[in-house]
């Protein structure tokens, strides 16, 4: 599903002296079936932005098109289920949403809210638990007896179980160890390969370089740039103003270029960097 933001502005507490613009006239398109990363400093408006996609927040002005559906300030709170079924959302520390007495019931909760039969929901739970790297024996346990990392996986399974077409991830790997983080990121990449649209909010630029097809940079509620990660990380203006941190490979390449090495464009992944260095050293 293609998602289009058209001059979207969101003001928190409008008409009060504590009003602040969470989003300021944002227009851009998130392409279907791609992996889009959204980056920006703390408080820049990333979470505010993505909460509009499943109408948890509504724009103060402007509109958002999600497939056929249009969300405006007038959008009614009723009848949002079809939209929320299509757009799944994994929040930061998603383990905080668990509440049922077994893992299975918790995973089934979403699909059943969206109208699946008990059978279908159960089937989906069995499929998803494996998908997130746990085995079926976990289904009968209480989610509260699991470790943090396992709870995180169950929560993610609970979102995936409704089979959303678009999956929004708001810093889903915070607090996980690197091995766990990598496994979760690979899981999302796999989902994309199955034809889902993935939107990821992250502070980890290496993940952006490694996994994203497109990226958008938000600063103080404004979209300041979007495009291919390779282009965006090579945008000198942004780097000069310190609005963006480079992935490690790009930062290292930039260092290398101080003496001898030359890069038309900074490579952003280790593989790219390796190839470029080899080429420049072997002269081929």
């Amino acid at each position, binding site marked *: 599903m293609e998602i289009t933001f058209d001059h979207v502005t969101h003001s*928190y507490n409008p008409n009060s*002296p504590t009003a602040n613009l969470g989003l300021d006239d944002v227009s851009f398109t998130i392409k279907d079936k791609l992996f889009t990363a959204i980056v920006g400093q703390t408080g820049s408006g990333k979470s505010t932005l993505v909460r509009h996609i499943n109408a948890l927040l509504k724009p103060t002005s402007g509109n958002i098109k999600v497939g056929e559906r249009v969300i405006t300030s007038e959008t009614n709170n009723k009848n949002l289920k079809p939209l929320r079924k299509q757009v799944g959302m994994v*929040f930061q520390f998603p383990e905080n*949403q668990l509440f049922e007495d077994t893992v299975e019931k918790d995973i089934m*909760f*979403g699909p059943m*809210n969206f109208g699946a039969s008990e059978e279908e929901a159960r089937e989906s739970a069995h499929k998803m638990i494996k998908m997130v790297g746990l085995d079926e024996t976990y289904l009968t346990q209480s989610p509260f007896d699991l470790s943090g990392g396992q709870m995180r996986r169950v929560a993610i399974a609970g979102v995936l179980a*409704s089979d959303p077409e678009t999956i929004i991830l708001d810093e889903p790997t915070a607090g996980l160890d690197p091995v766990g983080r990598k496994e979760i990121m690979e899981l999302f990449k796999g989902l994309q390969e199955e034809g889902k649209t993935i939107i990821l909010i992250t502070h980890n630029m290496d993940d952006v370089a490694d996994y994203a097809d497109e990226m958008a940079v938000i600063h103080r509620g404004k979209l300041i740039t979007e495009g291919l990660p390779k282009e965006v990380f090579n945008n000198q203006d942004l780097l000069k103003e310190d609005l963006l941190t480079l992935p490690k490979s790009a930062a290292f390449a930039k260092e290398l270029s101080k003496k001898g090495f030359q890069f038309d464009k900074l490579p952003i992944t280790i593989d790219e960097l390796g190839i470029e260095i080899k080429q420049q050293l072997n002269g081929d």
Partner: protein
Amino acid sequence: MDKIILGRYLPGDSLIYRLDPRGKFLLTFYFVGIVFLANNVASYAFLLAFVLFAVYLSKINLGFFIKGLKPVFWLILFTVVLQLLFTPSSHPIWHWGIFTLSKEGMVIAGYIFMRFILIIFISTLLTLTTTPIEISDSIESILKPLKKVRFPVTQVALMLSIALRFVPLLVDETTKIMDAQRARGVDFGEGGIIKRIKSFVPILIPLFVSSFSIAYDLAIAMESRGYKDGEGRSKYRVLSWSKRDNLMVIFMAAVTIILLFLRSY
């Protein structure tokens, strides 16, 4: 949650902000007391003038005070209508079944309405210009004499201030959990009463779990910074009573005298 004005602090600076919170706190209570002394148009008008003057001194937009009425709007309306229709009278203007509309009824309803306005405005003024922590400090200071009878004043005050610190965290947490469950297809406030109550289970359990873990984290953080049991602590925040606070008390005394005079006018 964002719409409730009563009980909210609004950052700002003016004479009213700078008053000692203890004085503000006690004078507000005192004022609520004397509102009940008003008994005629003149005395109510005088008190309203006083409140509006205080609002003016606070430099806060009157709109905030009017918004403060919102949450209790129905309560006010109900009470006023009750007075309007049920005040017994010997000269009813209109009469239907058990309902009576009379001049006396209208006057009493008007007074009640005025009382609501006065009380809500003055307490909104207190909370808008005084941080919760100042209020909790005031309570501690006012209750200090109770220490003599072994009442744990310091602990209670700290408990109060931690509770105050907890409120925004919990509000935040609630919003997050509600959002997460909404995204999983929960509709709050839809369907029959049973369904509505049921829809809160997915909120309450996670909220319970996370408030426990926040409380645990906070307790660990406090203990690691050497918080024992509230004894032997010194205090960083001090309240200072100044000339303008004295002035305020004198001013309030004058208001009382004028009010008593107007009562029998």
